[in-house]
């Protein structure tokens, strides 16, 4: 049972990450469409923010393994 709960917990965490990163991606696309010359800056910031959100999701996944 604990194994299933861990899997459910990890899945829930990934939902949050998915929504967050989807938001970042969409706003990044919009920003690039508005100002194509800023592609480099926008891409770097998008990857950075995505990694931060992924960090939270990965922490949740690792905790669901541990506990």
């Amino acid at each position: 049972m604990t194994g299933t709960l861990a899997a459910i917990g990890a899945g829930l965490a990934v939902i949050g990450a998915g929504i967050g990163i989807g938001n970042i991606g969409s706003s990044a696309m919009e920003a690039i469409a508005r100002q194509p010359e800023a592609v480099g800056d926008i891409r770097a910031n998008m990857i950075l923010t995505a990694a931060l959100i992924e960090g939270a999701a990965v922490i949740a996944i690792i905790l669901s393994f541990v506990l």
Partner: protein
Amino acid sequence: MGKFSFLTAIFLLVFSLTYAQHNHDHDHSGHDHSGHDHSGHDHSGHDHGKKERKVLKRNSKKLQEQRAAQSGHNHAGHDHTGHDHGHGHTNACGLAGDDHSTFNPGKVAFHHISDQNIFSIGPFSLPLPCIVKDPNGWHFFSSGKFKADAHGNSHYAYKGYVLYEGSLRRVKDASFPKEKVELHHGDITSQLENVDGIPKPADVVSVCYQNKAYKAENKSTFDGGMFGGRMTGFYDFSITKNVASMFIVFAILAFILLRTAKSYKTRQGKAPSGVQSLIEPIFVFMQDEVCKPFLGHAWEKFTPFLMSLFFFILGLNLFGQVPFFGGSNVTGNLSFTMVLALIATIVVFFNGNADYWKHIFWMPGLPAWVKVIITPVEIVGNFILKPATLMLRLFGNMAAGHIVIVIFIGLIFLFGKNGANTMGAAGASVASVLLSLFMMALELLVAFIQAFVFTILTASYIGAATEEHHAH
């Protein structure tokens, strides 16, 4: 001169702190089946416990007798189709060994991301030096003394130490012989037991010698047992696989980066060529995107530290991706990332100006009652959360990537039922290879991204600590 000594200081600090700590990974009795050939294993002559294998080999008559005597011994109810060993041999102490018949992906995955005292290159294992301090004093020996088998379980016990699945364990009992003694297959086992202070039953390794089961201590740790390590009686300063990988990556990086620096001096004014063309885009990218924007006026002071951090993490991430060469997992190791996060935090604290500390403890520009609420939040955030997230983000990303790849490769064993079903294994290997290729490509991307994110966050924290006063 200044930059070089800074670099060496950072590297030495990382090595010395990681030396004293050991990994906190879960100690599951994982099983590596990659080298272990079960086909053609004959059970009728398989001795259990004390019956010397040497005696059996020399004397075939005795072999016949023992075969007859053993027909009912410990094999009742065991299914021997194919190579199935049944539910674990029980050794002379009555402790069941690991079950070889089913593949346990979780345990194998955790075993592969754990630190070991052997450096395995393909099918060969390179023994690494063991440096331990226990109540009897300091010991220096090579892990080759243990003559570990394919699973990493040692064939000999030396000075009261055994090798269980590649990592050093010490037998608690002082009555265990201190000289080199021979053990038999299945003498080192691990059982799930309830240990004081740990909520879940933990794996406890036992060594069976002369019909007596001796409990072995867990791997030496510095954390006092937070992650199942448990305080042990010996301090392990061995050159383990992770430490050896760090040395290798350090050597590679030093070679590349020093050559780049030298060629900049000798080719001043000329276009970059050779290794400069490799390093320059990365270096200039990091300098322009990370160091200058975040550090402001003091960017030159911290650039060496941030660059060392970036290249070291990147090098270790990529080194962990190389298959068969050790399969090292340094950045996916909680103690290593903890040391990195601690170093970053120490750098931030030592360079924080009065403004920074004031912002944490008594943030200006807010009404007093809000400040009282904000202060504990800031303290927890700066002292605990920021280092913890730095540590866990890098650890989680790299460890999860390694676990997934090991599990994808383990699909072959799972579908092949550990060798019983060749067609299943063949089918699964097609899918497994494709999945593993995809995961490894993704892991290359993640390696760069995680090194970049760690560096940029450290730069942002340092920048916040050294920011000049601006009016609120």
